[in-house]
């Protein structure tokens, strides 16, 4: 079904002929996605009807108003990585926001930045670092949109102990509502600039994004402010060495360690203590045992060789209850305090520094990976793709409990041969905001081109999601359609509120609800 001629022309008039396409080759590149096989059985989800590249808020607004007028659905994305970015059903427009790519402001004094949707984490980070500041980067990678993570999606990264996470870093927002009106949230709503997410001005952060975000189902976010944090390193960050052994020299103002503990409980307690002491710039399970071999290898083949080597030599045991921590400070005395506090925490919890990761070149690699948030995409490299589940997304204790369960569950699928044998423990995440929030998602790697592996992965995600309800393990990070329907009844019926929000804000249901919430309760539910 092609767009009716007059509708195409109307949209073309809005964005210009070079910024709209109905070409099948272009549409297919928007239907192809990571995890698409779990939805459609192929690498392709639904083709959008057309793709538009709006260049500013006025164009976005005009497109949405046209969609409301002609009864056309749309979904916008920023960097567009993940199946939730795809459209569902016939006749849906995809808005690719990549032409809206400016950093509008970095307010050094008040420590915030204002960005458009297609500014990626790395871009904002390097510009902020020039001014002695840093931004929160999510673990998925600094190739993702800062705005999307802040307004529309879950967003956790390992500087979270210091920088919080994306949900909490969003300040004022410019939001084109599903009916085409522009709403300015927070301080922007009272003409006071971008510094505040909750006022002076309308505070609708919970409505706008809730916990996970509306995943494109509630209009289009065209600008937002995000918090920035101190950066204690140099304004530019040179990289030394040849890939994959390239590292970032560690500035004097930082210390980098990997820590190991005698048990999950000792690890959990130590992390709370670290939070209470308000130390740490990066902290979390960046290198769960299954990822240790991936730190400095260049291919899946080398990973397999390294994993076999370290497993044989019993080295993995040292990483079973391990975390990475970077201490960072703006003075020698502050750094000394942090070091002494860490020593005391280790002493009281029975923890110790992992000596084999104290080698300077290894620490430099780790520093690059975590400060720049560029390493986690290795999980695609080994088996072809990955899926993730569990996570808790509440307290650190819940995250640890979820991780312990995840390892047990994974073991079953590893023994079945359905997923990669990474040793069983690939629980990635950390405790954020000085320990007030915790998340440890259990990653599996699998070969989607192998029917048994794909089936096993699907079952793992399903079983782990079900277990989160039965075992009270918090909300899983696996993004599946119908998630709100599934988990709402166990969590204050939040799905009912989401549905009401959807109907109130989007009376014509033009914003594609497929990964947010269907406006009507499905039959039989």
């Amino acid at each position, binding site marked *: 079904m092609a767009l009716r001629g007059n509708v195409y022309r109307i949209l073309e008039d809005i964005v210009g002929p070079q910024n709209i396409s109905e070409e099948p*080759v272009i549409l297919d590149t928007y239907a192809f996605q*990571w995890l698409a096989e779990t939805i459609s059985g192929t690498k392709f989800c639904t083709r959008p009807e057309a793709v538009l590249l709006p260049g500013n808020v006025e164009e976005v607004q005009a497109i949405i108003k046209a969609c409301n007028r002609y009864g056309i659905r749309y979904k916008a994305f920023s960097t567009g990585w993940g199946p939730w970015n795809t459209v569902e059903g016939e006749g849906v427009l995809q808005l690719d926001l990549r032409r809206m790519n400016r950093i509008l402001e970095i307010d050094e004094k008040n420590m915030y930045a204002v960005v458009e949707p297609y500014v990626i984490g790395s871009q904002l980070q390097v510009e902020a670092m020039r001014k002695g500041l840093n931004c929160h980067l999510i673990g998925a990678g600094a190739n993702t949109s800062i705005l999307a993570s802040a307004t529309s999606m879950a967003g956790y990264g390992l500087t979270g102990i210091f920088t919080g996470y994306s949900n909490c870093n969003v300040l004022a927002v410019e939001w084109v509502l599903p009916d085409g009106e522009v709403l300015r949230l927070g301080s922007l709503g009272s003409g006071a600039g971008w510094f505040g997410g909750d006022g002076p001005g309308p505070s609708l952060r919970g409505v706008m994004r809730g916990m996970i975000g509306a995943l494109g189902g509630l209009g289009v976010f065209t600008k937002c402010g995000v918090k920035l944090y101190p950066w204690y390193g140099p304004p530019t960050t040179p990289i030394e060495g040849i890939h994959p052994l*390239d590292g970032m020299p560690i500035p004097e103002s930082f210390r980098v360690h990997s820590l190991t503990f005698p048990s999950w409980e000792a690890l959990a307690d130590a992390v709370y203590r670290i939070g209470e002491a308000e130390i740490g710039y990066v902290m979390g399970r960046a290198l769960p045992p299954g990822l240790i071999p991936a730190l400095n290898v260049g*291919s899946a083949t080398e990973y*397999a060789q390294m994993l076999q080597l370290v497993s044989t030599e019993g080295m993995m045991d040292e990483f079973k209850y391990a975390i990475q921590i970077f201490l960072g400070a703006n003075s020698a005395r502050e750094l000394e305090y942090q070091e002494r506090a860490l020593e005391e925490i280790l002493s009281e919890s029975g923890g110790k520094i992992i000596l084999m990761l104290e080698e300077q070149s290894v620490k430099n690699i780790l520093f690059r990976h975590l400060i720049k948030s560029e390493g986690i995409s290795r999980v695609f490299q080994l088996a072809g793709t990955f899926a993730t589940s569990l996570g808790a997304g509440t307290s650190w204790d819940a995250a640890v409990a979820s991780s312990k369960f995840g390892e047990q569950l994974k073991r079953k699928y590893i023994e079945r041969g*359905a997923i990669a044998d*990474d040793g069983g423990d690939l629980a990635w995440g950390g405790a954020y905001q000085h320990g007030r929030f915790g998340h440890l998602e259990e990653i599996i790697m699998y070969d989607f081109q192998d029917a048994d592996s794909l089936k096993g992965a699907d079952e793992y995600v399903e079983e782990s999601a079900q277990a989160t309800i039965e075992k009270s393990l918090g909300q899983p990070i696996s993004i599946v359609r119908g998630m709100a329907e599934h988990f709402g009844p166990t969590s204050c019926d939040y799905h009912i509120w989401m549905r009401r929000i959807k109907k109130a804000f989007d009376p014509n249901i033009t914003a594609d609800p497929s990964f947010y919430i269907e406006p009507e309760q499905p039959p039989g539910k």
Partner: protein
Amino acid sequence: MTLQDYRNDIQRCSRCSLCKWLPLAQIKSWRFANACPSMVWGNFHAYSAGGRMIAALSLLDGRIDYTDKLVEIVYQCQMGGACDVSCKVNRDLDPLEVMLELRAKCVEDGQVLPAHMVMIESLRSDDNVLGELKAERGKWAEDLDVKDITKEKADVLYFAGCRYSFDQDLWKIARDTIALLKMAGVDVGISGKEEACCGGRAFEIGYRGEFTKYAEHSIETWNAADVRTVVTSCSDCYGAFKFHYPRIGKKMNFEVLHITEYLDRLIKEGRLKPTKKVPLQVTYHDPCHLGRLSEPYIPWEGVERKVLGQVVIKDPPKEYRRGTNGIYEPPRDVLRSIQGLELVEMERIKEYAWCCGAGGGVMEAYPEFAQWTADERIEEAKATGAEALVTACPWCERSFRDALEHNGAKIKLYDIVELLLEAL
């Protein structure tokens, strides 16, 4: 390997878009964070390496058929390979190889561009891709006192390539090169009008038959003539010799050097002594074909095998080209040997360099896109504060000259050879 052979790899693309950017840790600013000219120019995802891999999969699966837009997407790319370097930071994929195979399939299926047909017709009739007469090929060296290697032996064969042979604006650089070699006492010869295209551009635009013909011709001719060393000033030709020639499996009994490697060697051996000061602050543009695309081809034949349950490995292990073994230091060392000259670096250098715009048949088929790409590089050069942009490839030189003429940017442009000659 054919496009079909890459099918598994293609499906493993996660649409992460890392191919659009410099490797994340290498990004130094918002302004110069992009790696892929095609993506910035075309904007739709299809113009990225990942997008082209998806297009290839759609084509293989019969989801799409050839259209003018598909052909444009396939060819509106300089094939500079920055995407390939970025992708391989964490992935075992070969997006550049997929794009090369996609072009070969297009040609096989008759999906070609008129501008490229002109190049190929010229190649077939006159052994060059510039639409010039073969008889004119040696004119750049007329009245130069240099051996004709078709008549007498020489230690070194200087291979000018199509661009230096026919682009009169650039003849001076080729002639300066001969002068430098003679100053160093090198026994150098040329093939004059008997020289033929290296075939590299034919390979890049998908014409495998023509490429094989010219690669075989070069190798057989030089092996038969007992040539020991081939030196070229053309980075495109150099890239073809290193990256593409090994694909045809013919043994090359000669060493191939880019002029910057050879001059660097001559300086370090004391055979060239740059003593005159050249007070100039310059920035150096790494040509794609001298940098990441000159990394030697690594043949691999094998199968995929599963270990550790579902970890997919290549058996035998496959070595990946990541751009790190390109020619980066020799040109810089030549510049550093010149007294008074100061080298300042751009943000995107070595294997992460932004393209000049000329490659992959883009200059011929999409001149506006080529010029925009060059404009972007000139902006980056200007941002260093350097007085001059220096390069080591006639295609880059041509592209920058055209852009400077058009955009009026105030920055000087040199080939390394010109600066070295000034310093002697």
